[in-house]
């Protein structure tokens, strides 16, 4: 755009007339900047829609919270306008811009001519188009009038619903909560402030706000604002939940206020288009602040506004410099919680995350580094280094020299030669605390090591350092390395869950119970995960450990499950699925067989196969057909066979005493009973059972995870068999006399395996690892163990035995089965 450098009336004392639309932060800041450069240049008139002087809009939150008064947030009082001969026309918004005559016309009819016009109309709150949005008691959070409306509502106490869990919404919620209202935040996305924070930090924020008494509903889509007698009475969500409310604050976001500019025919996209000098498509008209779009970007934060105002004032006073866009950061306090984010923290190729978590102090820090440059940062709980990171980021500084120490912050990274973590640990004083849980100093740990504790486990057992929460494991290992030098054997024998953590499977399982961890992000935070959201190894493991630890309480995380468990079918090499309906004990009947035959024909399944576990496997089903297939199978009384899960697969039986001339017991009937009591349970790995009616063992019970061999005098129970890669014959666990005992022992053994094995560890390697004696001790040392374990298993089963196929057939998670759409290429007609 070609902006003129000067205007008419340059000569002599006649001042150019500068009219500003908008008495907000951007408009007034621009004027301040101009006055600073050339106070005599313009005759200034400012129009403000609000009937008051210029105030600091971002301080409305403290006003709402009762921490500040309006007078304290005024930036420019009436005297400032007078001193600078500025005409302030407040409470009379501009209705029209007439570019031909170079005048603006206010709502009152007042006409004001301009030589130069500055549009600083800011932004408008975004109103979601739901029924009830216009009811009395539905407010936005944009200006002082909104705050007054909220304060009036809060005087009577009652309930408030804030729609929007972004920065603005949380500030409103905090203020209303401090004013004594019961506040519910309704947020569309799964995590709070998702534009500024990653999943981990968003989760921490949610936990903290909930601890402070707010109700936070994520994944919550508002369907309607309900009313009574014209006044708001509540909010109804799309999932049917209703939340009563005396006031509803709509704080889902803002959009540039462009109506005036658009009506005047200026170039407008999302915002008013401006060049690097903040000049619009009309050279006489400038625009600044949240209403503009510069190089494709619109800003909703205050820092870019200052940069824009400088460029604008330079241009308007004849020495143009240009604005090149802003890199933004967000640093704020929500309910007194410090939060900071800057740059790109989406990770990606060549980008590496450095994560530090300090659960005891509620701190999460994550910096993203690529090609020796800082790409982004998210800080929660301790934002002291936010500015330093932001500075490194903006300047694109080479951080290779301080990389190892970067996450520890400026003080540490700038501390000179301590870049190797071992060197940093070596430099700590002897009384520096290493283990916070057990209060162990560095000197004490080193003393232990010198006294003969040459491994992590030895240190843990001698001085207790790193023996509790384990977060100082890395420090202790560094101390071992520093103290022992080459003698330190290094890595521990027992492997960690994955590269995301220094904890072993046993550590994680123990700590989930001890610390009552009940969500994946919580485990990752408390146990100091070094990645922001884990990996394909640890996510499914954590999901299982939580399912096992908190039956009925933990909400299964579908996105942490392998495809087969998410789709409730087995993926095949061509991307189609195979479907195995449950046939209890391997029994079937004409109705089931007909239903299976019909499904095969109806969905053109290319193959049906009898499996090794006595089931029928239907191949070649497309993911979008699965719910319909299941509906047809359900209709014939069949449920999911879980052939896809780390779960009870099949109970294989022989015909037993009912038909077989050698049969000693009703092996078929017992198999059916066992299957009906164990189906649907999630386990560390797949689990197969068989019941043979005599020692001829036709059901191959001695290569199953749990096998029963019936004999004349009762039932032999065998465990830990495997017919897979490494064949293993079962160990005899014990012999029992009755069917009920067999059922109880089966439930107890499964529960012991569920509670103790590592994720993806079959019973065979588990027993090889811990020893049969350990398993026997767990089941028999305490005479009440069988009963207790079986009770825990049956309690868990009360939540698990719910056919997942029926839910999918009824429409649950339908998006997992449907394509988004289909693209059909245009065909050119010849």
């Amino acid at each position, binding site marked *: 755009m070609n902006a003129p450098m000067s205007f008419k009336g340059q000569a002599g004392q006649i001042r150019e007339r500068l009219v500003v639309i908008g008495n907000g932060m951007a408009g007034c800041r621009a004027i301040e900047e101009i006055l600073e450069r050339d106070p005599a240049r313009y005759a200034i008139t400012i129009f403000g829609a609000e009937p008051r002087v210029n105030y600091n809009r971002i301080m409305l939150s403290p006003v709402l919270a009762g921490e500040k008064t309006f007078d304290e947030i005024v930036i420019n009082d009436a005297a400032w306008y007078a001193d600078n001969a500025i005409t302030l026309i407040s409470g009379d918004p501009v209705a029209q811009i007439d570019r031909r005559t170079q005048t603006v016309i206010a709502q009152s009819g007042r006409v004001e001519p301009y030589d130069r016009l500055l549009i600083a109309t800011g932004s408008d709150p975004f109103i979601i188009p739901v029924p009830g949005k216009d009811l009395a008691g539905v407010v936005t959070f944009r200006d002082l009038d909104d705050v007054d409306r909220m304060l009036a509502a809060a005087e009577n106490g009652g309930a408030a619903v804030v729609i929007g869990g972004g920065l603005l919404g949380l500030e409103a919620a905090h203020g209303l909560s401090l004013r004594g209202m019961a506040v519910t935040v309704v947020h569309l996305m799964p995590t709070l402030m998702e534009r500024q924070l990653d999943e981990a930090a968003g989760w921490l924020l949610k936990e903290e706000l909930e601890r402070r008494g707010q109700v936070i509903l994520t994944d919550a889509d508002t369907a309607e604002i309900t009313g009574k007698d014209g006044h708001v009475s509540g909010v109804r969500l799309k999932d049917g939940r209703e939340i009563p409310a005396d006031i509803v604050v709509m704080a889902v976001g803002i959009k540039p206020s462009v109506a005036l500019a658009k009506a005047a025919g200026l170039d407008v996209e999302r915002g008013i288009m401006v060049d690097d000098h903040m000049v619009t498509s009309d050279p006489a008209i400038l625009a600044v602040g949240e209403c503009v779009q510069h190089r494709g970007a619109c800003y909703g934060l205050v820092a870019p506004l200052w940069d824009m105002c400088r460029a604008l004032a330079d241009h308007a006073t004849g020495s143009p410099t240009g604005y090149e866009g802003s890199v933004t950061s967000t640093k704020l306090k929500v309910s007194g919680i410090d939060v900071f984010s800057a740059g790109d923290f989406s990770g*990606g190729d060549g980008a590496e995350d450095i994560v530090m978590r300090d659960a005891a102090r509620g701190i999460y820090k994550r910096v993203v580094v690529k090609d020796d440059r800082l790409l982004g940062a998210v800080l929660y709980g301790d934002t002291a280094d936010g500015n330093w990171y932001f500075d490194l980021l903006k300047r694109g500084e080479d951080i290779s020299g301080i990389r190892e120490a970067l996450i520890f912050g400026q003080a540490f990274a700038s501390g000179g030669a301590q870049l190797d973590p071992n060197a940093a640990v070596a430099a700590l004083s002897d009384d520096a605390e290493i283990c916070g849980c057990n209060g162990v100093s560095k000197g004490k740990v080193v003393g232990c090591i010198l006294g003969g504790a040459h491994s992590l486990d030895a240190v843990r057992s001698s001085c207790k350092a790193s023996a509790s929460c384990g977060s100082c494991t890395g420090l202790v290992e560094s101390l071992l390395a520093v103290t022992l030098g080459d003698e330190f054997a290094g890595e521990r024998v027992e492997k960690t869950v994955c590269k995301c953590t220094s904890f072993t499977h046993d550590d994680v399982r123990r700590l989930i119970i001890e610390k009552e961890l009940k969500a994946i992000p919580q485990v990752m935070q408390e146990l100091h995960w070094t990645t922001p959201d884990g990996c394909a190894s640890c996510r499914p493991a954590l999901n299982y450990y939580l399912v096992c630890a908190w039956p009925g309480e933990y909400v299964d995380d579908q996105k942490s499950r392998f495809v087969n468990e998410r789709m409730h079918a087995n993926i095949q090499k061509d991307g189609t699925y195979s479907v195995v309906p449950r046939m209890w004990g391997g029994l079937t009947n004409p109705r089931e067989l007909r239903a299976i035959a019909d499904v095969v024909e109806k969905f053109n399944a290319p193959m049906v196969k009898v499996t090794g576990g006595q089931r029928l496997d239907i191949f070649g089903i497309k993911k979008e057909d699965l719910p319909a297939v299941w509906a047809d199978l359900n209709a014939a009384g069949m449920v999911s066979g879980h052939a896809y899960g780390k779960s009870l697969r099949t109970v294989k039986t022989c015909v037993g005493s009912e038909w077989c001339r050698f049969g000693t017991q009703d092996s078929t009937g017992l198999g059916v009973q066992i299957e009906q009591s164990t189906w649907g349970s999630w386990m560390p790995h797949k689990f197969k059972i068989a019941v043979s009616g005599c020692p001829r063992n036709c059901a191959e019970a001695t290569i199953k995870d749990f096998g029963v061999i019936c004999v004349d005098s009762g039932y032999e129970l065998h465990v830990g068999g495997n017919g897979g890669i490494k064949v293993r014959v079962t160990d005899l666990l014990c012999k029992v006399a009755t069917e009920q005992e067999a059922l109880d022992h089966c439930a107890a053994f499964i529960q012991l395996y569920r509670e103790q094995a590592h994720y993806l560890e079959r019973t065979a390697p588990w027993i090889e690892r811990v020893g049969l004696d350990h398993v026997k001790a767990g089941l028999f040392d305490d005479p009440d163990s069988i009963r207790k374990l079986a009770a825990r298993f049956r309690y868990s089963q009360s939540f698990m035995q719910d056919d997942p196929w029926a839910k999918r057939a009824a429409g649950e998670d339908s998006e997992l089965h449907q394509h988004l759409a289909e693209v059909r290429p245009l065909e050119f007609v010849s």
Partner: protein
Amino acid sequence: MIGDWLDIGPVDQIAPGNARTLPVRGGEEIAIFHTLDNQFYALVNKCPHKQGPLSQGIVHGTIVTCPLHNWNISLKSGEALGEDKGCVPVVPLRVDAGRIYLLREAVVVKKVA
């Protein structure tokens, strides 16, 4: 209206940590991913290894793990990560005003009559 970008609908039709698919008649099916950090990416829905449907894999960071043999594929570049070698085409994607757009020319295979 036919622009350079193909509107495939609102962002909220894909939950974070999930992916959905877009079959293309006469062309390759596309997988659209929504990461836990609220980024969106699109790849041809075929692992470079054995053509597994990447849309069905576990999404972590900006990586998807193929459901067939656990190859890790970068959502940003389509490259196989770690020891594995291979690359799947990336479909340029942008998000604007809550809607997802794919670069039309990367999606649509033109048919000439």
